[in-house]
């Protein structure tokens, strides 16, 4: 490999690969994704893809800092990320190449402490760039070094633990059905990340009812966890102002200002939500925000600004970290085959997202999932869950038998919680682990005969 005359040229075997912009070389350096192809920005050959990676590896962090993919003047997400950067830390690493950053992350003398020291100087574009030159195992190895702890009513992300969101969605928002799913999940030892419901109806009264029902259940059985109803943020804010007992406030976010506008939010609204969360959420905190993301969301809303889906995903994390959230997860396979075509692309994107989230310093988890028109199946997301437990993902989404009958897609099963904990010798969040033992669902970390029986939560 040798470098050409300009910053965006690579020459392999005498063939010169030229890239006309930083945006373009970033896009073409991605592993194959249908979404980049759909946007018309993907590499047109495998060799061009590697040439782009070669160019990226030689870029300095300064180049990426000076050239955000969406200009500062045009986009408040760019400005928010820029304002959050620690200039002093950045100055120390400005002359590193992206390859230097990769090798730093993978070096055996680099651990959580060393990465933590560097983190404040990294923009989302730098993190996206290094991700593009890392293999799947690189991503797992580097992500596994990072520990990100967050605290709400319990503590997630501590070393030796893995947590699970219990997602008890119901196609008619039926409170009884939802509570039966909650009981079912808890009996498998999942639910320590959050009991989080996607409501059918984005309606204040409905959100209040679901918050009340879950809070009452959590209170009755002393479950050390938090509740959340994932309606639009403004609906949750109205419910909380009206006295509804929410622990976490949720919102889907995008990596561009226009993308966020399509979600009906902006930075000002998120600021207001975070403030309301601090003052009015019932949780102990201090982390009370919950964000979901996913590659392709900006393109699907025609708000991608010509930028590839991986780089925009990184910018979601840059935005999220301004709010010290308790949970952030990518919903990696939900968006459909025009963005992530098959199991291979879903797995790659999942590894990228969790790595990028953790490198941003986020308590990062994943909804490892797929829709029925994506060329993937349950085996793919079980594979992904194993890989990402090895990578130290803070949490996973789980639903009854992997089948979400409300959102009509498949994710990890309640069963996968105890399976992953056993495989990797991990525990639940510490407070929740104690509760599982007290409830007799686990004994010394192993499932007991009571596990899997939701009727243990029946009042006499």
């Amino acid at each position: 490999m040798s470098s050409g005359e300009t910053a965006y040229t690579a020459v392999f075997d005498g063939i010169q690969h030229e890239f006309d912009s930083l945006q373009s070389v970033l896009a073409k350096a991605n592993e194959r994704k249908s979404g980049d192809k759909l946007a018309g920005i993907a590499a047109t050959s495998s060799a061009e893809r590697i040439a782009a990676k070669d160019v990226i590896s030689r870029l300095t962090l300064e180049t990426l800092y000076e050239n955000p993919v969406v200009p500062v003047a045009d986009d408040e997400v760019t400005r928010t990320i820029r304002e959050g950067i620690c200039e002093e830390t950045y100055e120390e690493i400005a002359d590193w190449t992206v390859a230097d950053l990769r090798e730093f992350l993978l070096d055996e003398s680099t651990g959580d402490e060393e990465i933590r020291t560097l983190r404040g100087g990294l923009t989302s574009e730098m993190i996206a760039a290094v991700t593009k030159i890392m293999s799947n195992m690189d991503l797992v190895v580097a992500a596994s070094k990072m520990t990100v702890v967050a605290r709400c009513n319990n503590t997630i992300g501590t070393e030796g633990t893995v947590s699970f969101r219990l997602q008890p969605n119901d196609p008619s928002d039926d409170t009884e059905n939802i509570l039966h799913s909650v009981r079912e999940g808890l009996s498998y030892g999942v639910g320590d990340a959050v009991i989080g419901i996607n409501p059918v109806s984005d309606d204040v009264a409905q959100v209040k009812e679901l918050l009340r029902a879950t809070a009452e259940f959590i209170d009755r059985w002393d479950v050390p966890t938090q509740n959340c109803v994932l309606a639009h943020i403004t609906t949750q804010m109205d419910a909380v102002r009206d006295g509804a007992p929410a622990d976490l406030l949720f919102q889907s976010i995008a990596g561009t200002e226009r993308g966020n506008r399509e979600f009906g939010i902006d930075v000002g609204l998120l600021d207001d939500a975070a403030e309301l969360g601090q003052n009015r959420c019932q949780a102990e905190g201090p982390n009370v925000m919950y964000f979901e993301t996913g590659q392709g969301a900006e393109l699907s809303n025609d708000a991608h600004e010509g930028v590839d889906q991986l780089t925009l995903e990184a910018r979601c994390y840059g935005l999220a970290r301004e709010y010290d959230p308790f949970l952030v997860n990518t919903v990696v396979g939900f968006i459909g085959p025009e963005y992530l075509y098959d199991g291979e692309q879903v797995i790659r994107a999942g590894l990228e997202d969790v790595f990028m989230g953790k490198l941003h310093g986020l308590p990062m988890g994943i909804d490892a999932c797929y829709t029925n028109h994506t060329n993937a199946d349950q085996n793919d997301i079980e594979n992904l869950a194993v890989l990402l437990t090895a990578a130290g993902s803070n949490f996973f989404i789980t639903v009854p038998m992997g089948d979400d009958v409300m959102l009509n897609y498949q994710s990890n099963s309640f069963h996968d919680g105890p399976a992953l904990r056993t495989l990797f010798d991990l525990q639940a969040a510490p407070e929740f682990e104690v509760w599982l033992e007290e409830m007799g669902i686990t004994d010394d970390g192993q499932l007991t005969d009571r596990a899997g029986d939701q009727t243990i939560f029946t009042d006499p």
Partner: protein
Amino acid sequence: MSRNSDRLSGVDRPENEAQLERIRGSHPSRVGVGRTGSRPRTETLLEFRLDHAKARDAVTTHVSPKLVEELGLVGVQSRATSKTEYLADPGQGRDISDETADSVRQQCTMQPQVQIVVSDGLSSTAVEANVPDLLPVLLDGLADRGLDVGTPIFVEYGRVDVMDAIGEELDANCCVNLIGERPGLATNESLSAYFVYGPERGGATADKSVISNIHRDGIPPVEAGAEIAAVLEELCETKRNGFDTESR
């Protein structure tokens, strides 16, 4: 060696068996399914895999050309040339090529009041399961109302908005697209009927009205055929998109 039957997990000896049976019987999700170790029971696992397999087959298989012929539909393709292209690039499924447009104009009645389009969408199974019962009822209903109906068309690799292109080419007053929905695990047979008045390319999907959940356990196809005829009459009378749901 036989499996030791003393090794039972929670749901084999539930604290409240009657309660568990009641929940299992009425709950829409797969709860109360039990486990072997940390994994699902074999029966539960295979039931889940079968439901997903049926959903995948609905997406990947093709509507049989024989059925298209039997129903008297003129068969065409969208701009997509394969399932792979259709799934990876939805835009290709929303339009037809110039050559297809020429052939549609030659084979079909021009300037109908109502143009019927049938599309595989994301479930060819939904088309095969519902359209044979639905279409005759719809055609009778439209005839009873004295509406002038064009030559019904089947579009392979068709998205909702493909009816805009077809309606524009044929200069139809309004179109209905009977299209296979993205299959779920509960059913792979669900069909939707999308409506547009004054079809033209570039019309937004969100502006179209829809009757969804047409299948034997939802709105049965025969009933749906009658409803769709009523909606099309309303569109022709009001000359605008959208219909009064009360009249359904």
